[in-house]
């Protein structure tokens, strides 16, 4: 893992954060409408759209820094037939355009939910496929440390976890405080979801560190990169659980502003996790 991979770390995290927010927005929209009313649900949805569109654009721009020739980036769509990188790029472009279109619609005035919802649902499906494409890029048969069933699971958990904490921030900051029980309820659901996802990630980290078969069996019983970056993994786990703890404090004390540091903790934890993921690249052969 060297400096040239930082754009990839930032790109994947930013884009997964945006996609997670879209998933949460669509997933909790019905609940919000029934509990908090149409106006609040509309406001939260608007916030999500205004945040995800620029995030996706920033993600795309950051990804260009990884290329030797960013000016030729459009050529990355040429090999959709076999390259997962092409497929990712194509879906990424469509998703960004869809969210930018929604954002522009909102800028020019109130938009009917009948217009927004089908586009957001399409964006949700695209996001789910895109996370799969992103993970498939790393399932290279010559890189055993990446070519594991846990890689797609890890990508999905990161997406949903980041989306959950970001959605909590949107709910807290996007609508007037103390709007009743719905906010506490929704934060509790998001906190339980986050706890579940961090639990899955902890299992994935343990499985990833100590297991493997044949050529993928880790040297000295541990994956490549562990010795050099063990502190990064520990930092990731500590931050994730600290974030969860703070999430609990925010809910039980009703000091809702605490969701901001929760988001920061989880975000930094996920960046550390992705950094370590790239550091574990070790292919077979010479």
């Amino acid at each position, binding site marked *: 893992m060297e400096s040239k991979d930082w754009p990839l770390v930032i790109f994947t995290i930013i884009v997964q954060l945006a996609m997670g927010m879209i998933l949460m927005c669509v997933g909790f929209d019905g609940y919000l409408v029934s509990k908090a009313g149409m106006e609040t649900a509309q406001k939260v949805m608007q916030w999500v759209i205004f945040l995800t569109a620029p995030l996706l654009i920033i993600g795309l721009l950051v990804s260009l820094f*990884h290329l*030797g020739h960013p000016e030729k980036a459009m*050529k*990355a769509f040429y*090999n959709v037939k076999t390259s997962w990188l092409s497929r990712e790029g194509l879906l990424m472009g469509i998703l960004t355009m869809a969210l930018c279109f929604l954002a522009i619609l909102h800028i020019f005035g109130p938009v009917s939910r009948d217009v927004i919802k089908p586009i957001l649902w399409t964006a949700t499906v695209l996001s789910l496929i895109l996370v799969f494409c992103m993970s498939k890029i790393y399932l290279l048969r*010559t890189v055993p440390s990446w070519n594991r069933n846990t890689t797609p699971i890890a990508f999905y958990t990161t997406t949903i976890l980041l989306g959950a904490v970001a959605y909590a921030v949107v709910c807290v900051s996007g609508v007037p405080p103390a709007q009743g029980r719905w906010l506490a309820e929704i934060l509790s659901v998001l906190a339980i979801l986050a706890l579940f996802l961090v639990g899955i990630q902890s299992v994935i980290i343990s499985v990833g560190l100590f297991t493997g078969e044949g050529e993928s069996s880790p040297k000295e019983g541990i994956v490549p990169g562990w010795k050099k970056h063990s502190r990064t993994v520990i930092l990731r786990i500590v931050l994730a659980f600290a974030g969860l703890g703070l999430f609990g404090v925010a809910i039980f004390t009703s000091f809702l502003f605490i969701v901001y540091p929760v988001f920061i903790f989880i975000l930094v934890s996920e960046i550390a996790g992705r950094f370590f993921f790239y550091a574990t690249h070790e292919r*077979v052969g*010479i």
Partner: protein
Amino acid sequence: MKNELRFNQIAFYVDMTLCTGCKACMIACKDKNDLDVGVNWRRVVEYTGGEWVKQGHAWRQDIFSHYFSVSCNHCNTPICVESCPTTALCKDKNGIVSLDRDKCIGCRYCEWGCPYGAPQYDEKNNLMTKCDFCSDYLEEGRDPACVAACPTRALHFGEFEELKKKLNGTVSPAPLPRYELTDPALIIKPHRNARPVGFKGGKISNPEEVRWNPKIGLW
């Protein structure tokens, strides 16, 4: 001038029993292709290992060391071609995996997957580079530079299927990867001390020459 050499699938043949590790092939390749420091399309690997083994009441050593020359093996199922998002890498005439520099965007995805370290990054032009089997020489009916330079005749080239028949199939000794991964067009006559694929008791003792590149961080 000789006639152009044509193949269905061109392949390298490496006789490990003859390779002395002189690196003439490596230098010839660098010279012919004017490769920059750190970019080595052909590399000579020194693979060593062994330890003290107890035999009855005595201890004996089973150390080994041997050389082999490796470059792009123009695989039949090349992971670099599958991965390349721009189609800059493709299987060319003669079965050569060739690179179109105009299409390459320098994403380095091909570099991640190739188990032979064949695609290498050119820091000056921000593009990938790789062995093209000296296709210009082949058009002139000449041998590739590495093959022509080998003083012990450890390196040959020819039609893959014919070489395979002549040498009773293919083997892939350590530290090379399993053959099935990319189906390389490479025939090896193994050294007597060659270890089977997946053997973990040896190491590449000249990694700076084989893997070193000033800015290829993942290595």
